[in-house]
């Protein structure tokens, strides 16, 4: 009955896994068609046998150069891999019943779920025979050794870090830093485009998430807030207490005023989801719009960012 920790076993196992992989890649490398058309990755699909070293929150890991079967355990990783054209074979999702978020599009619809983000299933991951696993130290810390025994595992530190940093880490792991740069540049370009065509300079916007009466205002360091500011809008000044968001009591609802007020909801067509405090003061909130929570809050990543920017454009166009 062997109960030894698998760390030293995993290195031998890793070598055993890497060798046939490398052989397979070497043979198919020249004949492989370039990866799919999200336009960015797979450029180096030559006979680039070998691995590259990736530094991450759990140290350093040798990752194969041409990763085909990725399993991702965090939404930002899912978004980034899909955006880079490497559709994962498995992903941990927030809502097992709902599966992969809809905003990721048809390409992502077929991804197998390997459990929830907080509690992924090791066996489901192993059954998919991945060649790279991406996870988060602050959530999956206990599982690192087990995951490493399946495939090279790269961990990002926490999900609250700036999402652009995590995009860069995912791209490094996939060996496609150029792809990440392209994605982020496209995002910035789109921001500038919106800022120019709708002349957003000087316009204020506030993203609000209602939670049982309390209103959570999202600040410039949050995903939604940073996207709004990228598009040239300004989030009203306040003391953000070094956090991505600040809660306010409904008595202070007027502090959420801005030219554009975006209230998040799970169902954008349901008006009752707008909190009472805002509805009662509708006169103070002329520029009120209900937006979809699934990408404004949880859609962290390049594709989510673009979807939010599309939404912003729609709102700005509608309000003109």
């Amino acid at each position, binding site marked *: 009955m062997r109960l030894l920790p698998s760390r030293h076993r995993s290195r031998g196992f890793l070598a055993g896994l890497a060798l046939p992989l490398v052989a397979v890649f070497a043979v198919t490398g020249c004949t492989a068609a370039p990866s799919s058309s999200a336009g960015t990755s797979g450029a180096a699909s030559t006979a680039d046998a070998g691995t590259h070293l990736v530094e991450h929150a759990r140290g350093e890991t040798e990752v194969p150069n041409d990763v085909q079967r990725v399993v991702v355990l965090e939404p930002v990783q899912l978004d980034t891999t899909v955006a880079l054209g490497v559709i994962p074979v498995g992903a941990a999702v*927030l809502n097992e019943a709902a599966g992969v978020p809809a905003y990721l599009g048809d390409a992502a619809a077929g991804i197998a779920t390997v459990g929830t983000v907080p*509690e992924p299933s090791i066996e489901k991951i192993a059954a998919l025979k991945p060649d790279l696993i991406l996870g988060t130290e602050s959530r999956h*810390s206990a599982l690192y050794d087990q995951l490493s025994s399946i495939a090279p595992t790269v961990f990002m530190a926490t999900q609250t870090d700036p999402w652009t940093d995590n995009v860069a880490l995912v791209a490094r792991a996939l060996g496609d830093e150029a792809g990440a740069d392209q994605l982020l540049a496209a995002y910035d370009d789109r921001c500038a485009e919106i800022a120019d065509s709708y002349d957003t300079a000087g316009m204020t916007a506030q993203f609000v998430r209602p939670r049982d009466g309390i209103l959570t205002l999202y600040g410039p360091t949050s995903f939604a807030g940073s996207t709004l500011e990228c598009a040239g809008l300004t989030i009203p000044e306040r003391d953000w207490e070094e956090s991505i968001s600040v809660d306010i009591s409904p008595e202070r609802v007027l502090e959420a005023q801005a030219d554009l007020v975006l209230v998040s909801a799970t169902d954008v067509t349901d008006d009752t989801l707008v909190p009472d405090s805002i509805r009662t003061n509708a006169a103070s909130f002329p520029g009120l719009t209900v937006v979809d929570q699934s990408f404004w809050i949880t859609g962290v990543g390049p594709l989510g960012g673009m979807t939010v920017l599309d939404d912003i454009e729609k709102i700005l166009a509608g309000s003109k």
Partner: protein
Amino acid sequence: MTDRAVTDRAVTDRAVAAGTGRPLDVGRRRVVVGIRGLTVVIGLRSALVGAAFFVATLGFVLLALTLGDFPLTPAEVVGVVTGQVHGLSSTVVLEWRLPRALAAVLFGAALAVAGGIFQTVTRNPLASPDIIGLANGSFTGMLVALLALGGSWPLLTAGSLIGGLLAAVLIYLLAYRGGLHGFRFIVVGIGISAMLASVNTWMLLRAELETALFASAWGAGTLNSVTAATAVPAGLCVVLLLALLPLVTPGIRQLDLGDDVASATGVAVGRARLAAITLAVCLVSVVTAVAGPIAFVALAAPQITRRLTRSPGIPLVTTGVVGGALLLGSDLIAQHVIPLTVPVGVVTVVLGGSYLVWLLIHESRRRA
């Protein structure tokens, strides 16, 4: 029988005959195991129940090794166990499934024994280590480690241990007033527990949704993060603590008869109680540090055992076996029967509670 065992039996029978209210049952067979000074008395019926549950546990372990999302045929599992099959299959069976199954058995035993000790010492069938704030304190410690300190696994374990033990110590200090009286202890426990629960609620409210989900899953008690690396040290601790049980049981059994009888037979009541409770607290802390506060095993397993063995007190060894089977069975259900991912603690609560309810209905029908 040793001298000690004879004395115990004589005292017990005399006390019962003196009319403490329990029917004199000269038909109870007992088995005494142990050497002079360290004895464990096991009734025959409880030995049988224990053996039955032990066999069930073995069956559950076999199931746990065979079932799973990683496709393995029973032949492959046998091959791994006999050492013929290697590679990923071997890793899956021996390093993922086996540690989890063994941890479930050991943790279940630890919780059940701790619950049994508590219920015996406080003479209250509803007593559970939860009342002394261990569950809530551990959760608080874990939340602090997760939300303020980054949340890597060793930090979470340490936070949970420290939080639980600090809560227990705080309750002890506040309840101690020239002696430790059970009632004051319970009330202070409820008070501190409630305050810690509020702190936890507040922290969960302020956390991001996925973080709160992760924390709540831990807070319900989950074996999902139990790996060989975490299970082995915790399992060893549990085994060591359980090995100390024979030192504590004689004192507990005398406490069961009431404080007066206990002091008359030379048991230092305060010390016996303290030793027993300390052992129970340690058992629960170790389990909670790794798997979170798994509810109801500590509460239900001793009661289930007591009813099955029809004994007046709580036979601790049998309770341990029952607890192990209960937790492992619940984990199997949580993993393989329920389609979505639920923590094992949810299953233990629902199963344990349902069984208690069924017992209550059954008992009343028998009496009516």
